[in-house]
């Protein structure tokens, strides 16, 4: 039956989406996205919800991801920023972080101290303008480079560095004012 058929062509599926191992991408990048949200929202549950939403959007759009245009981390964080924007548009900005459980590897004492520090930092972050808070979440939550942040935000790389430096300096000053450990 020679008339049949360019099947792979007719029905290209996941196998030909490219060589990207999406499971590996998920394992590597999901913690970054999760921590981006941890530095943006009040509680772990909300951070998990927003992480889920981000990955569901990304998963549906992964056919259109082009690795020559952006690293997967940058692409995912771009989606995460949009999810965060939508979230804050629908909900009043929440106190960022601070109510979360301590990391599982902490001792009970360390966990209490860590949670206390986290709560203080949360209060300070809440004082920041939206843009600066977002930059801090990308930098320290997601661990993005200044270059990646510049690509995500449209700011120049040097501008990102300058803004972050100022924000961290101001945070340090406020931290000392409220009696945080150096």
């Amino acid at each position, binding site marked *: *039956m020679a008339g049949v058929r360019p*099947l792979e062509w*007719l029905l290209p599926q996941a196998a030909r989406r490219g060589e990207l191992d999406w499971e590996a991408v998920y394992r590597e990048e999901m913690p970054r996205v999760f921590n981006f949200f941890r530095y943006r929202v009040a509680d772990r549950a909300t951070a998990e919800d927003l992480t889920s939403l981000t990955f569901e959007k990304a998963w549906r759009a992964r056919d259109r991801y082009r690795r020559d245009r952006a690293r997967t981390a940058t692409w995912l964080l771009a989606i995460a920023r949009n999810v965060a924007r939508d979230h804050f548009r629908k909900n009043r900005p929440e106190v960022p972080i601070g109510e979360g459980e301590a990391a599982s590897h902490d001792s009970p004492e360390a966990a209490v101290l860590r949670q206390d520090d986290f709560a203080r930092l949360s209060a300070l972050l809440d004082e920041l303008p939206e843009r600066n808070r977002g930059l801090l979440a990308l930098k320290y939550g997601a661990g993005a480079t200044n270059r990646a942040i510049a690509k995500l935000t449209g700011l120049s790389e040097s501008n990102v560095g300058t803004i972050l430096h100022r924000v961290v300096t101001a945070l340090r000053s406020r931290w000392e004012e409220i009696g945080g450990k150096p």
Partner: protein
Amino acid sequence: MNDDFLSGFREDPRPEFTQKLWDRLQTIDADEKAPRAWWPGGPLLVGATLLALIVSMVSLPPVRAAARGFLDLFRVKRFAAVPVDPERLARLREGKLDLKTLVGEQVEILTPATGPEVVETPEVAAQVTGLVLKRPTTLPRDAALAEVRLRHPGAFRITLDAAKLEELARVLGVTDVAIPPEWDRAAVEVQAPPVVAMAYRRGDDEFVFLQARSPVVKLPEGVNLVRLGEIGLEMAGMSAEEARIFARTIDWRSTVLVPVPAEGANFREVEVPGGRGLLVTSYRRPKDGARPGGRWQSVVLWSEGDHVFGIQGPGNGAEVLEMAQSVH
């Protein structure tokens, strides 16, 4: 306070959350991959792909002919529906045959067909692919062009394994079809052309218009195409007599058979630019059977000259057909 301090509040996601979200993504794949398939007919055809593949594999030529080189060419001129017996699919599932592996081992990608790539405009897609693009002039109400995607050309080769084909036939319950031993290691080459997809959206609805030149399938000469067609149709679920009659009505050098589940789907020939096309409509049940909200999905397939076209969208076929009939 320093950078380390600020970074120090990062936490690992809970393992149960990590696993649950990953499982959820797999569910999305199962539920939604088909409607977003690059080629129309996704939800309809995905389930039947295996059978189509069987039909393809059964159709392969004798190896002695292959030795003389690829001299027979196939080009798409017509689409014809083939009802697929759902019991055959059930047998495949029950047989626990790892078809993905079985088939994957036989497919050699000669040139990866990269993409889909989103491009700014249809004009850019035309420039990249060299296609003179057509467009529908009638769109579903409130639908507008939202995205243009293209897939670059590629090529692949399918090599037969007679033993695996026999295993496949056995699982399908086809006992009277002998796979000629000379088919073993026979190969077919497929050259997939560049494809342009224009996605028109209306809320969550997406209508996708695809166009491409006909793919070219290189076959060894000297194949009894009608007999091979009969075997393929029999494996798809027809009786031997039905297959014999049907096979003689088909031009096997230019007809693409579109497997259509015998239940939950229907098809008919329709008038389209340049002649006749095939409209297939299927009903997708929600994955959770207790949940309402299944939907109809339709696809029109046709060819004109050496180009092939398809439009897929939601609904019972009226809107995609109207789009198809306005393409010029």
